[in-house]
């Protein structure tokens, strides 16, 4: 399976990755190679195999429903580029 340059650009956009136009062709080739590997695996008959959700053969540990986190807003916001009235400020996102 070969990816087109449009598809590579779309994937990059969805992942919000900035890529150089000159690299698109090589990305297309490399990503297509990965897909080819997947295709090869897909050709194996797995009818009797339960799909695996996680490589570890373990089940989810659960947490008791208790509030254990104290307020650390000041600490977290010290790293934020811009805050006001306790809010994190970001470039406006509404149309």
């Amino acid at each position, binding site marked *: 399976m070969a990816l087109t340059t449009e598809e590579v650009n779309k994937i990059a956009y969805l992942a919000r990755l900035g890529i150089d136009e000159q690299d698109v062709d090589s990305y297309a080739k490399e990503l297509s190679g990965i897909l080819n590997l997947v295709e090869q695996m897909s050709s194996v008959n797995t009818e009797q195999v339960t799909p695996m959700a996680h490589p570890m053969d373990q089940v989810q540990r659960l*947490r008791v*429903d208790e509030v254990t986190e104290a307020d650390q807003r000041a600490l977290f916001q010290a790293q934020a580029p811009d805050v006001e009235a306790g809010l994190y400020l970001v470039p406006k996102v509404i149309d």
Partner: protein
Amino acid sequence: MEWETVIGLEIHAQLATKSKIFSGASTAYGAEPNTQACAVDLGLPGVLPVLNEQAMHLALRFGVAIGAEIAPYSVFSRKNYFYPDLPKGYQISQFELPIVGQGVLDIEVEGETKRIGVTRAHLEEDAGKSLHEDFQGLSGIDLNRAGTPLLEIVSEPDMRSAKEAVAYMKKIHTLVRYLGICDGNMQEGSFRCDANVSVRPKGQAEFGTRAEVKNLNSFRFVEKAINYEVERQIDRIESGLSVVQETRLYDSDLDETRSMRSKEEANDYRYFPDPDLLPVVITEALIEQARGELPELPDAKKLRFKEQYGVDEETAVLLTHSKDTADYYEAVISASGCEVKLCTNWMTGHLAGALNKNGLDITQSPIEHARFAGLLARIADNTISGKIAKQVFEELWHSDQTADEIIDQKGLKQITDTGAIEAIIDEVIANNAGQVEQYLSGKDKVFGFFVGQVMKLTQGKANPGEVNAMLKEKLKR
């Protein structure tokens, strides 16, 4: 052409846990911005989500309540999209293997019962809140809500009108509150829904193209938004245009829906299993436990009320729409020891009226069930008349006193001394010779005047039935 509407709802019910679904931060509503957003909720590097067991229990309780299949093995997935109130760049949700599978729910619309399929219900985390005003061209982000557990309840496209959609939503709303899994507070966003709406020519088997109307947080808006959307789609098709599959927002001020994403590409969430979370295994024992936690469900309670208390359908709906109302009603019946009819009438009449007028629900009633029962008991044993009872009700509403204290203090006790009433009646007759004349000449209407006078002189404390009988007797002579 005749059109048929097809509606499916996705309801988001915030689960009533103390802490978030994957972190130990508080879920309490109304805190200062970002004071309940911990490192996990902020998506800081190196953190790991750990599932809140209570969120799982509450989801299970919903599943068994609608008779759904419970997945023995369920998986969390990442739903990828970029928005500032979703700091990780993905929402942890469930995709292929949701915790609750296919179930059903019966709704009643205009006297008809209709069965609506529930496709699935899955656990997921809520996003934060974006505030777009007042920040000089920037948006403010509050992540307190980020990571709050949600149960997304997805219906089959089984509803055929806005009315049915509202009935279904109300039914789920009642159910989740009965189950104690969600507080149902729509103003605070604890219960909201997205509606998938499409239209098709009547008789056509395939569905039309649907539009999704997002974030409807009141029953009224659900109805209005769907009705608007149906009109809009029919208009488009009839004028030769097609319906675009898209996400739309309902604007309640303008009563219209608007396209939310104009140029952005179609959603491509690229779900995949979240490697940070292991599969959740639900044992038969856990399902049994959830069954054991089920209260009497709304439909069963309604049926029982009709049989046990002889109330009609409408009254039964009124009394059982919330568990708190039903509990209050039954507590009043047992505490007052008076006949059910009196309790029902006062409960659905005066109390419901006063609560309505003041915008309160039963849990906020200034009159607790014990004091209300105390009032009814005094009506039942004829200590006070119905008229005086209204006065006592007012006093109960505005004070902490019991009905007995109020009756005592204000001397509202009905006069049972027939001699005293007799004396007053004699007085009224003696002072109103003209009216007596009229009455005797056949003007029966004047009788009301005499009753009024007697009640006035006794300050309403005479038993009206007794007054009537005695007056009739006296006037005959």
